[in-house]
């Protein structure tokens, strides 16, 4: 194959360009034929032979160039054969259709048979079939149907749910190859004679050498190619396609070097798995500590309402953009009397489900107002410090099952509120500095109860 001169490959690459000329001309001829059926357009018929003649010439050219392209060996398999024979058939039939339309051949015996329209219809079918094969060769066989509304979706690899399930090749290596390499290195396209779709083909390698050598990165062309300078002509994937990320290269390298390219090995059984575990888990999106709290999408809040609340003194900040959950702060001493506090809270209650963090520090809140706050059932953090609230008020708040942190420093609570604190479902931390609760009380509580954590002051 090496004796094929480069000029052949060079010309062969014009095939995808030239091939569109006969397609256009044949369809054009077909269109003319149809249109000429109308009385006032029948002059168009004269043009048909010319369209078909040029169609035949360009089709023949395309065939020759196509053959040259196929010599590169980058295409293979039944798909290529199909394209090859259908292409030739199309060319021959175009020639024939020209002869018919130019009256060089006459089917005298079949007077009723409309030779012209029949040959042209057949041609359109042939062109479509050839084109389809050609398209599959260039773009892969699922290119056409991938986003089609009908038909079967390609089955998705089932993602492993736990680290124990992870098979290095199936869950990590193959998805990377599939994502970045297989569109050009598959049984029907085989760029460089290489296909990466199966274990067998991967080990077989391509024309240019050994794709992977188990345990030896320096002898694995795959790694060599993806780690070259991106401007190098041998760099893979070629320009214009997405290169492999640093992590993907690490993962492939680990599999070749440490797993000795074992196709069955599990991640947990790998030697030196600690080196790669973090990257692998991140790639698989299996992070365990990284499960961030799911944020429910809440309905938007009327912005006039927010504006009104702000004008009354509340500082309101969205915690996540467009999630409509808020951090609300009523700056210290905004409410100077329980009545004012009550009015403000009634206003605030209009967005109560949207508030995650709420600070009401030093705002003349009393136990009475806590009845309103107890209906704010999405609260995570609540600052009630420096308000004259007592145990009775805390009792009410346990309705807020989401509450995580409760700040009660400088309030009138005492150790008798411990019983209600235990009834909160998710309470983790309670701040009790400058209350009647002493460090002895806290010690006693902590000795028996794990949660919540009580934080009294360091200084009295």
């Amino acid at each position, binding site marked *: 194959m090496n004796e094929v001169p480069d000029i052949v490959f060079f010309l062969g690459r014009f095939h995808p360009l030239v091939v569109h000329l006969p397609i256009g001309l044949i369809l054009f001829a077909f269109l003319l034929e149809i249109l000429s059926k109308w009385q006032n357009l029948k002059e168009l018929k004269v043009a048909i032979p010319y369209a078909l003649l040029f169609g035949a010439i360009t089709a023949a050219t395309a065939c020759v160039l196509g053959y040259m392209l196929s010599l590169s060996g980058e295409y293979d398999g039944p798909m290529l054969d199909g394209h090859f024979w259908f292409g030739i058939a199309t060319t021959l039939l175009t020639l024939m259709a020209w002869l018919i339309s130019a009256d060089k051949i006459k089917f005298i015996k079949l007077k009723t048979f409309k030779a012209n329209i029949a040959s042209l219809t057949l041609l359109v079918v042939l062109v479509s079939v050839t084109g389809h094969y050609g398209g599959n060769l260039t773009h892969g066989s699922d290119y056409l149907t991938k986003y089609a509304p009908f038909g079967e979706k390609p089955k998705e690899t089932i993602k492993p749910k736990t680290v124990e399930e992870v098979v290095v090749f199936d869950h990590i290596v193959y998805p990377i190859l599939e994502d970045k390499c297989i569109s050009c290195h598959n049984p029907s396209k085989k760029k460089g004679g290489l296909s990466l779709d199966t274990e067998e083909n991967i080990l077989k390698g391509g024309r240019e050498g050994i794709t992977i050598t188990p345990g030896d990165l320096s002898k694995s062309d795959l790694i060599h190619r993806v780690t070259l300078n991106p401007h190098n002509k041998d760099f893979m994937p070629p320009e214009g396609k997405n290169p492999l990320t640093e992590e993907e290269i690490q993962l492939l390298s680990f599999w070749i070097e440490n797993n000795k390219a074992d196709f069955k090995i599990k991640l947990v059984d790998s030697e030196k798995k600690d080196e790669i575990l973090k990257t692998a888990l991140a790639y698989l999106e299996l*992070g365990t*500590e*990284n499960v*961030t*709290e799911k*944020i429910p999408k809440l309905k938007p809040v009327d*912005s*006039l309402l*927010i*504006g009104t609340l*702000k004008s009354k003194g509340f*500082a*309101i*900040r*969205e*915690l*996540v*953009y*467009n999630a409509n959950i808020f*951090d609300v*702060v009523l*700056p210290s001493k905004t409410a100077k009397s329980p009545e004012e506090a009550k009015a403000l809270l009634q206003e605030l209650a209009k967005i109560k489900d949207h508030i995650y*963090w709420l600070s009401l520090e030093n705002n003349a809140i009393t136990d009475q107002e806590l009845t309103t706050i107890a209906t704010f059932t999405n609260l995570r*953090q609540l*600052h009630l*410090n420096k308000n004259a609230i007592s145990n009775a008020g805390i009792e009410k708040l346990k309705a807020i099952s989401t509450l995580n*942190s409760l*700040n009660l*420093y400088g309030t009138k609570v005492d150790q008798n509120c411990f019983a209600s604190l235990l009834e909160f479902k998710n309470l983790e*931390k309670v*701040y009790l*500095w400058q209350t009647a609760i002493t460090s002895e009380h806290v010690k006693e509580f902590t000795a028996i109860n794990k949660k919540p954590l009580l*934080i*009294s*002051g*360091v*200084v*009295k």
Partner: protein
Amino acid sequence: MCDNHEHKKLRSNNRDLQEIEKQIDRRHFLKKTSLGLGALAFSSLLGTEKLWANINAESSPEEILNAYNKNRLGLPHHLPKAKRIIYLFQSGGPSQMDLFDYKPKLTDMFGKELPESVIGGQKLTGMSGAQSTLPIAPSTFKFQQYGESRAWVSDAMPYLSEVVDELCFIKGMQTDQINHTPAITFMQTGNQLPGRPSIGSWLSYGLGSDNENLPTFITLVSKNGKGQPLKASLWGNGFLPTEHQGVQFRSGKDPVLYLSDPENYDGHDRRHMLDYLSHLNDLQTDSYGDPEIQARMAQYEMAFKMQTSVPEVTDISDEPEHIFDMYGKDSRDPGTYAANCLMARKLLEKGVKFVQLYHQGWDQHTYCPGGVKNQSKKTDQATAALIKDLKQRGMLEDTLVVWGGEFGRTIYSQGQLTETNYGRDHHPKAFTMWMAGAGVKPGFSYGETDDFSYNVVKDPVHVHDFHATLLHLFGVDHEKLTFKHQGRRYRLTDVHGNVVKDLLT
């Protein structure tokens, strides 16, 4: 009195000034003609002028409120853990092996040459690079384990050792810079050259203010600091709009000068004066389009608000005795590190998002044991007190505390080594920082250095990673907070940085 000016374009009656007003520079010309006309055409095509016009007199209340209520950059990207931060910058490069990075094996190696294999061909500074010998100088400080987390702390920091269970040590910090100015600039802005926005400016730009009466980003510097100079570019806004630069409070009794009214003026018509001034400035913005004019207007407004808000927040006279006792006796002396820590807490309480504190003097090229002891004495008690104080107020929950310098120091002695004395040179390849509070693991230590505290052997954290993590805690994806300047988009971490998830709760 001057309201009749409203619809007239303001023109000067001086001939020279008129000439200047006629001029319009190339950039503005291109902007006005190309963008202006294009935008005009486009918007009339779609009939959507209102959607993307700035708020103006014709905007409906709904539009104004939406522009006001929603973060214009689409932040935060995810649920934040931190709401505010205090960054205790220890300028000069604190010696990690004399404070936190305990290296017991070195006691037997006193005076021995630091192996070449450890240095690994690293380029040393001109200060010790020419030394004929690089003798190992084990720390003279005594180390002990503290707290439930059993963290090692030297006896230089007795107060801090009481709060180790709140701290998250990063022992494998790494930077690219070996000299003060580039290193500190790198630490504060993500680039060694001055001119990029500082961390605080990015946060102010991205997240906005929590208290409109105070600056979002305030800088405090310990007074009488000796050593490498600090400069305003460290808390500068770089190419971000100027109102996001850190506002430096003076270290002294009067943190912001000229806030009080001058003699014989009661300030009753200042609001009126400012309104008219901003009207004049509006006219200028209309004709020149210079964003600096808007920044200046914002700053006038801020100064006006600070006339009442600053005296209130900087007045520490209402702090009880026991609080002063906790921060140490220096805390009564305005401008000291301790007093700044106390003021920082008050600022944070009032909703300032970023307090950047600087303490100079950690550059122990000579007399390292004495120097470290000295600086620890000035900072240890107040640092620990700040942690305790934030904790008891429930503020540690959503306040991030950061402690650290611009790099570490060498294990070998710069200058002569004796039993009790040594110097240490700059060392960028390994140093210790710690964080505490919002969203970071308490009582945790991350990363390890080799036996010489010279190379990081496990879990390195680069300055870019640190920045990425810091932004992450504020709900910001460091790759998405960008600003386009001179034709490309910049970020705090530029093209680097990974969030260190292991540090997060």
